[in-house]
């Protein structure tokens, strides 16, 4: 009797733990060399994601900006600010800033940003409302369940490719989103059956 109870408690605790932020780090902020605010740069200033993450349309990795990209503005603005001292040091020494990864996938997962962007999966689908994050945190659990839910039923997650970096919702009804997504799938022959093949992500 006690054994059964203990086993049940353990099972439930295990079930809850692997879904909790302790395991997924969802909502956790990583320490960074500079307290970069996406809220400020995206919402207040209106920078496009691709200004800094320039590889997102053409390669697997979205990429992080080089110090020179930061300096396009910060050679003129806030040139003496203490928080930006590591950026100036980086420029002077030629050593890039060491940013800490926020959204991490295991090394046995093959993920390619460019195809997702090209088909109109908005940045916010996976990275959340970056425009509201003063400090950047992981918006989604990034477990296999999260990936495969979308691969099984991509239609509601597909939007117009020219608006992928837009953070505010499109304002479409659920039915419209699905109708649009299904047309995208038909046009590009996106078949959920092939999207859930093991080899799509585990190559």
């Amino acid at each position, binding site marked *: 009797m006690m054994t059964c109870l203990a086993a049940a408690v353990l099972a439930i605790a295990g*079930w809850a733990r*692997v*879904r909790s932020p302790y395991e997924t780090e969802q909502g956790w902020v990583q320490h960074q060399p500079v307290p970069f605010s996406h809220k400020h740069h995206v919402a207040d200033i209106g920078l496009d994601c691709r200004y800094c993450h320039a590889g997102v349309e053409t390669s697997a990795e979205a990429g992080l900006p080089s110090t020179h990209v930061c300096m396009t503005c910060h050679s003129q603005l806030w040139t003496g600010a203490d928080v930006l001292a590591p950026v100036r040091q980086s420029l002077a020494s030629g050593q890039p800033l060491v940013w800490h990864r926020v959204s991490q996938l295991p090394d046995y997962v093959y993920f390619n940003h460019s195809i997702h962007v090209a088909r109109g999966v908005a940045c916010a689908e996976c990275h959340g409302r970056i425009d509201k994050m003063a400090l950047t945190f992981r918006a989604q*659990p990034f*477990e*296999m*369940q*999260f990936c*495969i*839910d979308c691969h099984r039923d991509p239609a509601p997650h597909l939007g117009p490719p020219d608006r992928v970096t837009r953070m505010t919702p499109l304002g479409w009804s659920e039915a419209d989103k699905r109708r649009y997504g299904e047309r995208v799938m038909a046009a590009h022959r996106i078949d959920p059956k092939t999207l859930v093949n093991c080899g799509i992500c585990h190559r």
Partner: protein
Amino acid sequence: MTDPAQQQAAAQRIAAIPTRFPAPMGWWVMFLFALCLLALFFVSVAVLFARGPGIWGNNIPVGWGFPISNYIWWLGIGHAGTLISAMLLLVGQQWRNSLNRFAEAMTLFAVMCAGLYPILHLGRPWRFYWMAPYPSTMGIWPQFRSPLTWDFFAVLTYLIVSVLFWYIGIVPDLAAARDRAEKRRWQIFFGLGALGWRGSAAHWHRWQQSYRLTAAIAVPLVVSVHSEISLLMAAGPVPGWVSTVFPPYFVLGAAFSGFAVVSMLTLWLRAMLKLGALVTPRHLNMLGILLLATGLMTAYGYLAEVFTAAWSGGREAETMWDRFVGPYAWSYWGAVVFNFVPLQALWWARVRTSPIALFLIGLSVAVGMWLERYMLLVSSLYRDWLESSEGLFRPTFWDWSLYAGTLGLFLTCFLLFIRFLPVISAFEVREEAQEALDG
């Protein structure tokens, strides 16, 4: 036939075996030997975990090699325990009472050894639970079309039912041992195991129901589990495997190898624990007959295989011919000779009741059936449809060491069992004797 009164007295002694063990020296010698092999098991597994399955001879095209052929061998041995206990219980063969308890224990430990092999054979053994359909964060089911998943369900189901059947059977004897124990620690040990058994009529009634019900579940499992194992092979498009005779051939081969090992264990325990009054020449005779019968049925499987291959022609016939004369011919002819030649001596009752002869024949069959599993697996895999993908399989030191290690695991568990628990079902022997006295 032994005198019932004498038998009853012997039954009294069984419950006292753990507390007053009759053969401490022999047991310790065997136990030390078993522990050495067990240590080898742990070393082999540690090396495997550190360096991966590359330490074995397995490689494409023979990706299965020792782990899977030994898995089939161990599981087959396990089946005899269930057949002796459950099937003979259901058909009312009371002579089984002297054999069933340790035959069931043999099943448990053999299934443990068998179940470890597919897990160790995984590239990442620590992820073995991915085969279970638990609510994971991956959002997918296990691949039900994969033989690996079939193995998982087959072994797990079989293990659970075997444990249940063995445990339900032993409960009344644990209670007897509890009541007989003089030292406090033995009383607590057996008392916990006996689950508050008092031997009331209601207890016996429930016990009868559950025991027979579990037996009725266990017997079909022998057939389904080993058929599943045969389908690992027969479901694949590999020459030498695609044959409808495989499921019965495997089930009978399993029973055959299992009865061989049961005979060996019977004779060993009989000699070591001096159980001559309980395990009589009649039992040896019955074991000999069972061995001969299942052996001949297995021989039929061999013939059917040759016939199927000759009838199919083409690659099937080539593979069969390759088994006769190819690089693995030694395993084919070894299997034929070890399985069926000494077996013919069992036609004579004098051989069946001779402990030494029966033991040696059992040993020969265990070896022969091991060769058969090896032959079936390797001789088909090493040479399939493409000449370019041919490649010989050679076991390495770590293949052999892990195999010897599982023998150690089996022996250690079995020796602990005979040391600490009643090896023969005392109450069933007593019941049988009482019925004989009552006429």
